[in-house]
């Protein structure tokens, strides 16, 4: 097995909010991420899935230190970067890059593509002055854009092309880890596949490890070898792709898979039953006691309200497959069988 590149331990992000309550004001916190731990090996790709508000993007932003975690450790190659000061952080910024969801708002409309991509080169003093343009053109070519277009502005490109520019900017500093935060969800299906293939090539050719944040279970299944399912700021189940998709143990993972609209249902054998969750995700300001999923769970019992289930390997599961549930049991036949 390759070396562990990034280790996240008990990461927490609590955003304080002020809320009017009666005469005074009370201080409350949004527990956006509350105790997330995982490891990323060199060249691997870990998928973080979950619904909006589950903390997957916040986790990505903490790893790249766009946010400073409330607590916990982010150990990158042996150094804990969770609380490092900006100056000490700089060498690590080079190693950890992020690709954002929205290719429209994540590129400065007033800068040329060449400027956007060469800024990180200048910041990190990577390329001597005269050779910047050559490097920019090389990067543009790498992500499948015409190198001649380096003098254009972002508005002259389509959504898919802009996302490629965002990827080129992340690649400029030769990072070892890229956090891809919903990189394809703003794109049309045919364009989505082009960008997915590009990311896959980068992973294979350059050995970059990915933390892939997405809500689309199909995309995650395609791209990631390891999957962590998040719900209300916690990881509820984690395992290899096959473990999660073929024998999910946590009721939330099962519901999520069962709810995903699947094209396979029309060509293959549709699943016999579909699990439907009721209601909405509770507020992260005041999450349920014990297991956070219990308010929507059909298996919930008394113990779920009083005792928080730990993310642990269950007796019946194979190695590396963890679930945080008192009543975890594998369930198969949730997705269509291909004919």
């Amino acid at each position, binding site marked *: 097995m390759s070396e562990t590149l990034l280790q996240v331990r008990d990461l927490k992000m609590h955003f304080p909010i002020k809320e009017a309550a009666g005469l005074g004001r009370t201080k409350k916190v949004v527990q956006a991420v509350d105790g997330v731990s995982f490891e990323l090996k060199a060249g691997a790709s870990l998928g973080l899935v979950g619904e909006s508000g589950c903390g997957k993007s916040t986790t990505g932003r903490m790893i790249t230190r766009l946010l400073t975690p409330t607590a916990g450790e982010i150990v990158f190659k042996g150094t804990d970067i969770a609380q490092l000061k900006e100056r000490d952080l700089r060498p690590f910024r080079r190693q950890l890059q992020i690709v954002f969801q929205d290719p429209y708002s994540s590129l400065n409309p007033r800068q040329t593509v060449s400027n956007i991509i060469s800024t990180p080169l200048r910041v990190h003093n990577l390329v001597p002055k005269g050779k910047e343009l050559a490097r920019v053109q090389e990067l543009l070519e790498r992500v499948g854009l015409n190198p001649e277009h380096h003098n254009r502005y972002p508005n002259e490109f389509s959504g898919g092309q802009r996302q490629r520019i965002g990827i080129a900017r992340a690649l400029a500093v030769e990072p070892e880890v890229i956090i891809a935060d919903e990189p394809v969800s703003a794109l049309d299906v045919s364009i989505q596949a082009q960008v997915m293939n590009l990311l896959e090539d980068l992973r294979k050719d350059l050995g970059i490890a990915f933390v892939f944040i997405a809500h689309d279970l199909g995309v995650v299944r395609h791209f990631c070898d390891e999957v962590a399912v998040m719900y209300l700021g916690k990881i509820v189940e984690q395992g290899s792709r096959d473990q999660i998709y073929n024998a999910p143990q946590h009721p939330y993972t099962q519901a999520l898979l069962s709810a995903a609209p699947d094209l*396979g249902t029309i060509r293959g054998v549709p699943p016999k039953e579909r699990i439907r969750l009721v209601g909405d995700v509770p507020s992260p300001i005041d999450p349920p006691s014990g297991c956070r999923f219990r308010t929507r769970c059909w298996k919930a019992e008394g113990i779920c*309200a009083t005792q928080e289930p730990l993310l642990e390997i269950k007796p019946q599961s194979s190695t590396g497959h963890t679930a945080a549930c008192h009543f975890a049991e594998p369930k198969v036949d949730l997705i269509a069988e291909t004919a």
Partner: protein
Amino acid sequence: MSTPAPEDRAPQDRVPEDRKDSMAESAPTSADATADAKRGPSVATRERRQGSINPSGETPYLVVEDLAVKFPTADGLVSAVNGLSYSVPLGRTLAIVGESGSGKSVSSMAVMGLHDRKRTRITGSIRLGGDELVGLPENELMKIRGDAMSMVFQDPQSSLHPLYTIGNQLVEAYRVHHKVSKDVAKKRALEMLDLVGIPNPPRRFSQYPHEFSGGMRQRAMIAMSLINDPKLVIADEPTTALDVTVQAQILDLLNNLQKEFGSAIVLITHDLGVVAEMADDVLVMYAGRCVEYGTAEDVLANPRMPYTWGLLESIPTVSAASERLRPIKGLPPSLLNLPDGCSFSARCPYVERVKGELCTTQLPELLPVDGAGAHTSRCHLHAKASIYEAEVAPRLG
């Protein structure tokens, strides 16, 4: 965690409310959910309606023929929709699929008569229950819109008025088409909120849109669009803004309501997974034209048009093994300046298999794929069936 169990909590607390919501929604079996804690999950089943595009043989409720929508702009004439024809009988769901800019939303806005008349040129025919809608004056159309046909929009946040209560908006929608008192309308509104699975309708009635969650807001939108018992519902990306578990709830709701009221649904979406789960019939649009049309089974399991193949090949599915995706190369053409011949020819990998330069010079007709029948596609390619079986189907796994 020190918070008490939900049963003991103060009523203003959010969690027990959700608990109540969930119990109310999964009624009646789990009404006393705390008692039988080890109950099974709530399970939904969906049966696919078989049969041809128009099983009954009667005139379908909505018939669109040769619809064209053009917008004159400073840069020239934008042909957003060109010669589109389809029909939807009562009780069936037609899904219109396509990428952004393919004309799927524009065509259904035309059915609803929502385009600015001064800036749009609409030709062709749209018949709703036998009555022609194209060319109808605005005041006539207003009587039909919201009554016989209604629309569910993508983004419930921006399509509900933020300054009026949900109840107010429902009552208004009802009273525009029915001469009734406010009390009668309120009763009807409460009924509708209950019908779409919003818990505690009397309290929700007097709340504002911002007090609703995304899924609840979309339920309220659906309640509003169904309040006058429309026979045609156009749902424009109704679940795109929602999370998967909530999306599943809303799709189930639309399905159940259709079963109950037998309305015709036009579902506009880019998500082929949703299409596979919801649609009876499917129409694939590309650059303003219909390129393939047939039952869901025809189009998704036996497609006969390279663009549909491309779409299917470029989607990673939840159930399929992970192989390399095969994206459609290039970009859709500009609607200002559509190419001669087939609009898809520039991106089509099969162009060379057609003799001569047919693909780039002559627009293919929308023809039945097997010589007769209702499954049609727009492509010059010969032996589409054998190419699909031999080359495309194996790659789909």
